[in-house]
């Protein structure tokens, strides 16, 4: 699927957390802070798409599946259609295989079940050669 396009800022990894839940946004942002990853938040898929339309780029996108206005599946399809090559990881509590596959088919590079942990994020970053 997508390949790493390197850090947008040249030195620090950047990430976009896309989730409508403010507790989850807070936790995921704190987790990324702890790992030294610069992060931003979008509260639904449309905000994530709009950020990219405005020229913003991110090395990593953590995409929730269920959001109002535009869900994670629609947003991922839209971003890929726009040519966004960032690593997009679907993050959800859904565990049914068909639901996960539907989300993966929209253009994800990976899927992780909530809750995210430091080790899950590190394994994602290792896959894209951002960490040793």
């Amino acid at each position: 699927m997508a390949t790493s396009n390197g850090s947008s800022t040249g030195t620090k990894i950047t990430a976009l957390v896309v989730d409508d839940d403010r507790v989850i946004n807070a936790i995921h942002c704190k987790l990324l802070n702890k790992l030294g990853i610069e992060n931003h938040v979008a509260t639904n898929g449309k905000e994530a798409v709009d950020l990219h339309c405005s020229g913003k780029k991110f090395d990593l996108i953590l995409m929730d599946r269920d959001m109002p206005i535009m869900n994670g599946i629609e947003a991922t399809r839209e971003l890929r259609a726009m040519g966004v090559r960032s690593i997009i990881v679907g993050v959800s509590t859904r565990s049914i295989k068909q639901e996960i596959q539907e989300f993966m088919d929209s253009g994800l590079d990976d899927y992780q079940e909530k809750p995210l942990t430091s080790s899950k994020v590190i394994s994602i970053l290792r896959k894209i050669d951002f960490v040793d």
Partner: protein
Amino acid sequence: MHSSSLRFFLSLNLSLLLFCGASFFSSAMAGLTALEALTEQLYDFIQSMEDDGIVDYHFKDCYNMKEANGPFLFIELIPTYISDSETTLEEMTAELDQPLVKFKHLEQLCTRLKGGTACIGACRVATSCGELRRAAIAKNKDNCLLRLEMIKGDFSILRNRLEAFLELERRIVTNDYQGC
């Protein structure tokens, strides 16, 4: 000034200085000991929640994130979680009160509640949410009502424990070690 008076004056000041320094050090040490005791009490409390199956290891992991994110992380996060969860539970109740239940909407509410709950490590409520979601997928209203009551019961227990936890945490971050 006479040399003996000067010597006396200097030794008196030195004694006073040593006494103040010793008192300050003693208070600081007492404060540190009280902080350690309170912190130990807090970690014991987390362990008791884990032992009772209310939270899993994610809760402690979340809590330990405050090292990199500031001391007020949990004091801000937990009340937000409780408030948002109560809102979602009210919406679930309202949906199941309808003559024609929108099970898809109920599913979405379950997913929403489960997400934040799982992320703070509140495993018992998260598991109950999963069970309600399965009942909603099956469009079984009676089972949904039963599962919702179970979630409310589990959430009530969780909320009480979290509020007690927050009380300890507040004392730690506001340096209130009285009565340790």
